[in-house]
């Protein structure tokens, strides 16, 4: 019954607005040419993340000859991988119209859980046990998934707004990470042959065919996410929930299950990213991945995911992560101060949202003209 509160507000504030209706009603001259131009513009806007990425590479490589070297590209891509995996998880959540602010903390918690298992083992009544690296990684990911499940249950069963639920979890999971070691660092994760837990460095340090394992993992996660979002009923349902939840309910979709599932996916992706980061560093400390949730959300938004839900692609998110990573590393390489790096990054994100809206407007105008 308050559905038109906003409408009322508009009515009340329209003193401040010059009557816009006349302009809108004016006939649009030269429509065919306009349409062709609009289509070209739309194509550019749709591919804008790629356009920006290419521009970045051109600009930075013209300033610094080091930028486009193979070793630098591999290094930058490795940086991208961690944010991309976080961002893919967050994209699932945003597609349903939710938000996950807790992914950085979940990454930190998973890092500490895995680090603890590798460094000091697991205390059982019979003595301390050490698990193999594969099992440790699995446990880390399961912890992330469980924390995500808690987010999902808070949001669906207890009707906590996603922003609040995951903001709370941001603090709780970070606190849990600190409690795990009483604030300390697990400095050595190499393991020993005797304990059968060596090789944690594989995922974050090693390479296959000259490409870091972390990058391969990103490729696998992205491929799986693309298949899930575009080729499975579950994926379509995610988009439906974000596009119109009431219509989804009426179509027999178990909306709560879908929502819990996306937070579980987001938690698992966050944990995986945390483990990669930890492996790369060779040590686990409680502040791992602090504020990474913001980079992840930025990548998703930059890649065209609508925060209102229902619209976005995994490939867009990955491209967004590339833009952020290649931009940050480029700025470092050409010697821009860290303060200016922040300013540029922030401006790029806001600009991305503005172009997203331009795209939507153009698209709906074109639809109207052709309809």
């Amino acid at each position, binding site marked *: *019954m*308050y*559905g*038109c*509160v906003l*409408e*009322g507000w508009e*009515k*009340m*504030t*329209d*003193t401040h607005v010059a*009557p816009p*209706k*006349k302009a809108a*009603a004016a006939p649009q001259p030269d429509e065919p040419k306009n349409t062709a131009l609009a289509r070209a513009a739309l194509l550019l806007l749709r591919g804008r993340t790629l356009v920006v990425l290419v521009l970045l590479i051109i600009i930075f490589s013209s300033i610094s000859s080091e930028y486009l070297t193979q070793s630098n590209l591999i290094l930058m891509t490795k940086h991208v991988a961690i944010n991309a995996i976080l961002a893919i998880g967050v994209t699932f959540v945003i597609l349903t119209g939710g938000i996950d602010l807790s992914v950085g903390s979940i990454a930190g918690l998973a890092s500490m859980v895995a680090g603890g298992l590798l460094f000091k083992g697991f205390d059982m009544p019979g003595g301390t046990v050490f698990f193999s690296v594969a099992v440790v990684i699995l446990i880390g990911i399961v912890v992330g998934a469980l924390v995500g499940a808690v987010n999902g249950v808070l949001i669906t069963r207890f009707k906590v707004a996603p922003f609040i639920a995951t903001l709370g979890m941001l603090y709780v999971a970070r606190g849990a990470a600190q409690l795990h070691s009483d604030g300390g660092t697990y400095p050595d994760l190499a393991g020993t042959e005797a304990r059968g837990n060596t090789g944690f460095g594989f995922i974050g340090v090693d390479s296959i065919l000259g490409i870091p394992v972390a990058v391969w993992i990103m490729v696998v996660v992205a491929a799986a996410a693309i*298949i899930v979002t575009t*080729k*499975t*009923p579950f994926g*379509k*349902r995610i*988009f*439906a929930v*974000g*596009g*119109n939840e*009431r*219509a*989804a*309910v*009426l*179509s*027999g*979709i*178990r909306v709560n299950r879908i929502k819990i599932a996306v937070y579980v996916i987001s938690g698992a992706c966050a944990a995986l990213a945390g483990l990669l980061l930890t492996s790369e560093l060779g040590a686990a400390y409680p502040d791992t991945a602090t504020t990474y949730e913001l980079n992840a959300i930025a990548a998703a938004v930059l890649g065209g995911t*609508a925060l209102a839900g*229902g*619209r976005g692609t995994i490939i867009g998110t990955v491209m967004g992560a590339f833009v952020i990573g290649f931009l940050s590393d480029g700025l470092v390489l050409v010697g821009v101060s860290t303060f200016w790096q922040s300013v540029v990054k922030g401006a790029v994100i806001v600009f991305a949202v503005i172009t997203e809206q331009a795209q939507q407007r153009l698209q*709906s105008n074109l*639809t*109207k003209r*052709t*309809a």
Partner: protein
Amino acid sequence: MPEILEARNISKNYGGVRALKDVTFTAYRGKVNVLVGENGAGKSTLMKILSGSEQPTSGEILLEGEPVQLGSPRDAQARGIGIIHQELSLFPNMTIAENLFAGRELRKGSRFVDAAGQRRQAREVLQRLGQDRLDPGTLVGDLPIGQQQLVEIGRVLLTDVRVLIMDEPTSALSNHEVDVLFDVMGDLRRDDVTVIYISHKLDEFRRIGDWVTVFRDGSLVAHESMSRTDTGWIVRQMVGRDPDSLYVRNSSPVGDVLLDVRGLTVPGTVKVDDVSLTVRAGEVVGIYGLMGAGRTELVETLMGMRKASAGEVAIKGKPEPKGTVQARMAAGLALVPEDRQRDGLVQTMSVRENILLATLARMTRGGLLNGGAEQRTAKDKVGELAIKIPGLGALVTALSGGNQQKVVLARALLTDPVVLLLDEPTRGIDVGAKSQIASLMADLAAQGFGVLFISSELAEVMAMADRVLVMARGRVTAEFTAENVTEEALVSASASESVLEAAK
């Protein structure tokens, strides 16, 4: 008779839909000018134009003989034209006084709100509305809807209003509140204020109206002094001469009971109170009633979107006690909702995705969606229901209202229902599409489906339904067969609480 406001040769197109066709309407000074017509007849569109929130495609508006441009609600307000909308536009989080003065706060000095002055004036307005006991500091969200409606009316009384447009203001009011409102309208009339009053309630507007204007399908069909009309005349004008030509009568043989509802009760502001009904195979059952009678709540509960507090639902003779959407869908119910945009369509998705949304699980091969099967299934349904689309991949929002409605219907049919629940299936679509939806419903009945549909349109419900149930305030107040139903009986049963004796 002095006219104050005149709309001359007004037409209004929305995309391809002509909402108003060359309408010339006159409102007389100091009179209550009543507008009647069915949903989608164009009354509300004309009122939006007269209050400045919509611009006519062609035609002009004259205020006291002078042509005027009403470019925005502000423009209209500045010229003394106020409107009270059917839907409330109040701020539930603010007090009555704050709502009354929202956007035009009283000032103390140049910057500060004169809260005491606002409260004082608010109290005077509330007195005028017969609400002496109401504290202006009460949050609007805490008021019952009827009193909220009065606050809305109070907002307009505070402005220097010469023409007051009221769009179904009594739909949420109790009888006492309606009396208060009519007293206020009487006062206004004495103060030479012109009232334009839209209503569906024949018994009410005949009490207060001086002139009556009837709209049908975007045209003004009659304009008469109230004293020279009677209820039968008004209904005939509203319905038109030949409603049957528009609709196809179902004539299939009736089979087993497919849906059996016993004592269904749902609590809430709009409640469903002890409703029992049956729908048989091959039968088209209509539910007639006014807004807020509980019809939508009834079908939403049948579909599992609301929880019933009592009652039983059996489908094909088997009780279905779980009452979830999934269980009801599996048992054979499907709902085409009243508000397509809010409940039916996923606007961000394509036609194909919308059609297949409820049956995705069937479209898979090895866990992955089978694009070929999706394309075939969607294409079949588009052909079967003659949906006009630019392409299966087009955004569903690119379609016209009637075709959007068919997309929702296609999705419902794909779930293999035995009983289709259709909530206002022809609302907001043009006459041609209405006729198509109507013949689709008859076809479905002929194929052995049970069809239960809600309608606010007399002609539609009388022409299409084998049986008509009338609901008022959550209860079924009357039941008619196609043979013994009359317009007057439907209207009076929808207005009263008493259970009328259906002529059997």
